[in-house]
């Protein structure tokens, strides 16, 4: 009961400073934006691929002798 009264009092106070959102109508179709997001996400290279490339580069930099071996196996 006290909680309800507390909430009611705070609700009144809040509503004098922040009113409910009246305009909740979406003004445009968001599908084109959605398609762009889907395309961006599809073309994004996953972080673990970058990590793998970085590790491989570091190995080749530290052990250049491994380059012919790597090329042989490709």
């Amino acid at each position: 009961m006290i909680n309800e009264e507390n909430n009611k009092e705070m609700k009144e106070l809040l509503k004098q400073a922040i009113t409910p959102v009246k305009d909740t109508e979406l003004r445009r179709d968001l599908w084109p934006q959605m398609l762009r997001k889907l395309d961006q996400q599809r073309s994004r290279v996953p972080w673990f691929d970058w990590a793998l490339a970085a590790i491989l580069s570091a190995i080749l930099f530290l052990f250049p002798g491994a380059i012919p071996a790597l090329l042989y196996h490709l």
Partner: protein
Amino acid sequence: MELLERFAAGDLEAFETLFRQHQKEVYAWIVRIVRDSGIAEDLTVETFWRIYRSRTRFEPAGNFRAWARRIATNAALDHLRHARRETELPEDLPCAASEDSAVRGETRERIRQAFRELPAKYRLVATLALIEEEPYNNIAEAVGVSAALVKVRVFRAVRMLRKKLNSFGVEVAAK
């Protein structure tokens, strides 16, 4: 195959149909939480991106609307967590600034500041329950907790607001 089954199987056309059916409702829910139309549009797209990404986890016999609302609420909550303290409550959303208002401009600004400083999960339920007057059950379903826990969070939010307002010199009597 039904629309939801096709969506769960990764059919882009089915996803587009669902997007067009639900985008308005998802946007309307999010804008009431974040109170900014531009941010709400971005978060609507983010919500559907999350929906598309987790389509394999969706049970086609389930309630897509409720699932979408839950994901939208999480996206809005993530935004509140990251944007907290840095963003003002948008000015284009009107406040009751009439001459005869019992709360004057300065007090009103302090109330808004205290509200902004609430932790995100409390701000979310306080916005929906106290400002938007959404029923506890709807909030509970959207947040993914019980209605009792929503009540507890609203109570804690009110307590935090009262404490903060008192520290700002705005007298709010505790009952």
